[in-house]
């Protein structure tokens, strides 16, 4: 295959097979994707940092290994875009924040190390809301990312760069993190598949922490099969993460095509009837329901009453943990250090370290990050702890109990991913509460620690992608992916956004 044009837009499974067979080199695959990024990312802004020579060198290593007839990994030569929350030794890691501008970690996150071991090529680091705090990628400390389907709209967030990169076919696969919906919501808004695995399924080691008890890494892809392939590459126990699940996961990829005959599906009433839901999104959930029934599953509506408190609980727990996790960015050891200035803006030579800490954090953190640090600091303060953090943890327990009850009757649950399709850039930046509401359907899974996936279900009247969400209990990745695959077959969504010359009328 000499033309690189045929290499973009292919799935990871296809690319890995082409490289394995020797039909193309890994360097050709990488070059083709780098060329597309070069040509079109100026419109999308999905990458904070493009791998370039570093990616080519990784691809060349794969080709050399093939030339030596070594066994190639399952993702050999496949480009993967990585959210800039994952530590990488060869590319800067910023978490989308100015406070970490230019920081080069001395170690790889476990997920990235496993990608590399599988032969994948890290093609670049993608944009995000600063420290993953946001639902539109507009809170990036660098620049906002556009939705490839409509450059005037947001890609969702916080993993908006990864979702947009996969939608724009800059890479067939991407890594994201999902603390309150940060993989699933942008996947829905960008028309790709995005999955949040069970808490502890993918190691958090080397992922910049936002809210430790809710953070979980997961895959983006254009197909459910590619999603499963990427998941199986990065999942599994990691002794470097105490919260990592020790038991080996049940294989998911091998059971993907087993169908949903006899599967019990519950439609979560409270999430489907959520306030402000776009009628087309609700219609998509109904379509999903019909597809399941046609495929032999049984579907019923189920009530999970406590989910309505999920958003409130989340916005106590996540900021509380964040206020502590982000305390380390103080200008002492790495990242930005701002000089404390006295009156007249003159640097204070005698400044105490506390003044330097404050100046650094003032200069380095964005508005939303500061807002959450203050919220979380308040929620943990003496005299307020029990009323806020304690209460939120009790709500969390309640939601876990309600879901456990639902899973006594159902194998998987069905819900919208986001109440609406992509909104316009700037539409919600001045109203944090409206922004927070776009995660109302995804947050319950983070609170329970279970797994869920967003699958493209078609386009709305404005031509914007709609996602539906399938939820499964903790450790239920295999049944979750099998159920998602059935929807993928049913919806048969094949839309690709048009960019650059493709978009010309």
């Amino acid at each position, binding site marked *: 295959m000499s033309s690189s044009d045929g290499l973009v837009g292919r799935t990871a499974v296809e690319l890995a097979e082409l490289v394995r067979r020797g039909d193309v080199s890994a360097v050709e695959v990488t070059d083709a994707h780098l060329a597309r990024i070069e040509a079109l990312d100026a419109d999308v802004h999905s990458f904070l940092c493009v791998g370039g020579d570093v990616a080519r060198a990784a691809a060349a290593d794969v080709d050399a290994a093939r030339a030596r007839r070594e066994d190639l990994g399952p993702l050999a030569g496949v480009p993967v875009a990585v959210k800039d929350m994952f530590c990488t030794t060869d590319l800067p*890691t910023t978490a989308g924040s100015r406070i970490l501008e230019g920081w080069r970690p*001395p170690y790889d996150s476990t997920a990235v190390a496993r990608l590399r071991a599988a032969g994948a090529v890290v093609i670049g680091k993608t944009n995000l809301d600063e420290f993953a705090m946001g639902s539109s990628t507009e809170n990036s400390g660098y620049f906002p990312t556009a939705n490839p389907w409509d450059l005037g709209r947001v890609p969702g967030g916080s993993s908006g760069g990864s979702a947009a990169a996969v939608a724009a076919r800059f890479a067939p696969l991407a890594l994201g993190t999902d603390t309150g919906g940060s993989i699933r919501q942008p996947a829905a808004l960008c028309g790709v598949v995005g999955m949040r695995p069970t808490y502890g399924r993918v190691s958090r080691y080397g992922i910049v922490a936002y809210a430790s008890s809710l953070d979980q890494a997961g895959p983006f892809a254009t197909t459910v099969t590619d999603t499963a392939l990427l998941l199986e590459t990065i999942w599994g126990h990691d002794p470097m993460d*105490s919260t990592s699940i020790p038991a080996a996961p049940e294989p998911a990829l091998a059971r993907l095509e087993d169908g949903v005959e006899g599967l019990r599906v519950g439609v979560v009433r409270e999430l489907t009837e959520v306030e402000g839901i776009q009628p087309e999104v609700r219609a998509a959930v109904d379509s999903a329901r019909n597809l399941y029934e046609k495929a032999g599953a049984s579907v019923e509506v189920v009530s999970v009453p406590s989910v309505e408190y999920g958003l409130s609980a989340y916005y106590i727990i996540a900021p509380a943990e964040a206020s502590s996790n982000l305390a380390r960015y103080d200008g002492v050891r790495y990242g930005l250090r701002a000089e404390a200035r006295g009156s007249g803006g003159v640097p204070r030579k005698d400044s105490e370290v506390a003044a330097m800490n404050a100046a650094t954090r003032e200069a380095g953190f964005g508005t939303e990050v500061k807002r959450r640090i203050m919220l979380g600091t308040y929620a943990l303060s003496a005299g307020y702890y029990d009323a806020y953090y304690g209460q939120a943890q009790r709500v969390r327990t309640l939601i876990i109990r309600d879901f456990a009850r639902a899973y006594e009757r159902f194998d998987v649950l069905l819900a919208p991913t986001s109440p609406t399709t992509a909104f316009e850039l700037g539409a919600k930046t001045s109203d944090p509460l409206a922004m927070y509401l776009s995660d109302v359907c995804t947050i319950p899974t983070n609170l329970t620690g279970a797994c869920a996936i967003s699958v493209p279900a078609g386009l709305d009247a404005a031509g914007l992608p709609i996602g539906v969400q399938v939820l499964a209990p903790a450790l239920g990745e295999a049944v979750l992916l099998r159920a998602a695959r059935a929807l993928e077959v049913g919806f048969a969504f094949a839309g690709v956004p048009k960019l650059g010359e493709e978009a010309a009328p």
Partner: protein
Amino acid sequence: MSLTDWETVIGLEVHCELATETKLFCGCPNDFGRSPNTNVCPVCLGLPGSLPVLNERAVEFALRVGEALHCDVPEESIFHRKNYFYPDMPKNYQVSQYDEPICGNGWLTVPLPDGAARRIGIERAHLEEDAGKNSHVGGGSGGRVHGADHSLIDYNRAGVPLLEIVSKPDLRSPEEARSYVAELRGVLEAIGVSDVKMEEGSLRVDANISLRPAGSEKLGTRTEIKNMNSLRSLTHALEYEAERQAEVLEAGDAIIQETRHWDEEAGRTYSLRSKEESHDYRYFPEPDLVPVVPSAEWRDRVRAAMPELPSARKARLIESWGISDTDASVLVSTPGLADYAEAAVGAAANGSGRDVTNWVTGDLLAHLKESGAAPADLPLAPAGMAELLKLVGDGTLSRPLAKEVLSAALSGEEGGSPAAIVAARGLAQVSDEGALAAAVQAVLDAHPAEVDRYRTGEDKDRKKLRGFFMGKVMAETKGRGNPQVLNRLLDAALPTGP
């Protein structure tokens, strides 16, 4: 009122560095003396994305302490984050145990200065990570932060495992506090969890102290005293602080609840800035760690493997060696000393416990105090001590000569071997009667006037003169003459009276 009208109430927080191979949450070696910031990794530096993994050995050490101090060990304990900004803390929070510690509610029987023993309550013992170390440089600051040009931070110590053992406010005097720490130190040493060196900071003691009118049940306002680096400075600091508080109270003023720093050189405590006192640490459960749930089997194993504790060892030594309570206390409360003595007794003849104790708690202990050495590091090994005893026992060395040999052995002469020192210095005691009799005769011949006065003198003078002759004979034999033999020969050679 004077100090005697006040009752002193003291509670101690003892921070014990656990002697694990690696740090509390990462694989970095738990050792000291490396160049600054070389014994670090992403975890103990708190780099973005790093996560802690609990060191099981540290948990096991905490379980041993729980066992030794008769603590309740709950089935599950958890870690919290203690949040505050300080440059030596890589994450700006310390991972520590808070309201669910690994050990709660226990006691330690402490021998008190008046000879009695009392149970001192243990409030809790909890695991936590140590911070790095600041040094403040320049500006004539004398190493203090105020006035320094800049500060340097060494994170090698960050993440070293600490066990903080908190006593109940059951101690009633600085001397009791000292006895408590000495006893606790002995326990920690015996169970092998720490090298318990106060001077090197592996055992750090903070004290809470308050006064109340004698007979009152209500606790007074306390101050917390820091920076006491030895048992001696603990006693001095608490004595100073008790007097200071008594003066404040007697002047009708109130004690300010604050942290005070002990200044060893000035011999006083001084207030640290009190505005830093009202910290809100915003404790919350550490989400990066899972609960500590030691299995019943594990705890049984720890219990079964508990070594003999100092109190039991002391009773055994008193019983089997016939030594005094005081000597036994010195042996078990001085780090390494009882081990040394037992090893020496093991290498020596039966029934030598008392003799070994005399040497070890006498000249050898004096040497340890003066040199700061640990018994295990002495050039004179326990076997050498046994050898010295043998040389005394078989008459090769007199007691004064043995002291000389001991001193030489302790300073490393002849590799610390008493026999080699005796040979090299030609110190062996002379017991040969012919040689000694000649020496006696030579002295008497050289001092006819004194011999004459001896013959005619009163008993008092005779006694004095006899001492004079003995001294001369000893000098004649260069101190090596067997005193018993010499005594006999001298008595035989001196005239019997007028």
